[in-house]
């Protein structure tokens, strides 16, 4: 396998990892109003590779954010305790949106690398056509 195809492999592993991250972010956002929901945290890690194999990235295990859940005051809610409060989720929309923006930027960076690799390889092949 040439270095070009390895570069393509690595770039697409980055794309896949960012897409996975975005998926967990959207889970967090859609569950922002779910009582007792803890936001999911995605970590990245290098996939195990031997020797000359390219160091691809992948998403590791999903962790749950253990920070305190938001207390919501609503005595009419079926989950409300004696004080009229129940546990909401600990999702902060602002953080999730900022994270989504970061995922988008990283995705674009990987796309750019993909494009760059293709451009370079077709430039090399253009040499043969002359």
């Amino acid at each position, binding site marked *: 396998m040439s270095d*070009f*195809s390895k570069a*393509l*492999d690595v770039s*697409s592993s980055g*794309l*896949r990892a960012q*897409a996975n991250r975005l998926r967990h972010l959207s889970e967090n956002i859609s569950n922002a109003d779910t009582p007792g929901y803890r936001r999911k945290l995605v970590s990245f890690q290098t996939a195990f590779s031997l020797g000359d194999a390219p160091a691809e990235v992948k998403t590791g295990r999903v962790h749950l954010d253990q920070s305190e859940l938001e207390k919501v005051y609503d005595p009419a809610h079926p989950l409300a305790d004696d004080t009229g409060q129940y546990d909401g989720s600990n999702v902060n929309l602002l953080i999730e949106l900022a994270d989504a923006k970061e995922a988008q930027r990283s995705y674009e960076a990987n796309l750019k690398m*993909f494009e760059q690799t*293709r451009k370079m*390889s*077709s430039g090399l*092949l253009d040499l*043969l*056509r002359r």
Partner: protein
Amino acid sequence: MDIKAISAAQKYSAAIPAVTPDENASAFMKDIALDFADTLARGEHTAKDSMIGDADPHALVQALAQTELVVETAVAVRNKVVEAYQEILRMPV
């Protein structure tokens, strides 16, 4: 005149190994062709999978980019070979 004929014969016998087909080269070309067919088949397989909804789009894009690269290389090499062949055909005998 005699000496010239001898040196021409020597040059000819020296040039023979350069134009005899190499056994290793054909095995090498066979490997390349097999690799080419393999990449093409993988691309088609991934395309089929993603139409059914099995593969993720990243795999599809990656496989198709790989296939494009391989096909372009094969076409470029073929053009070069045909060009060389035509060059030989045009040679005044």
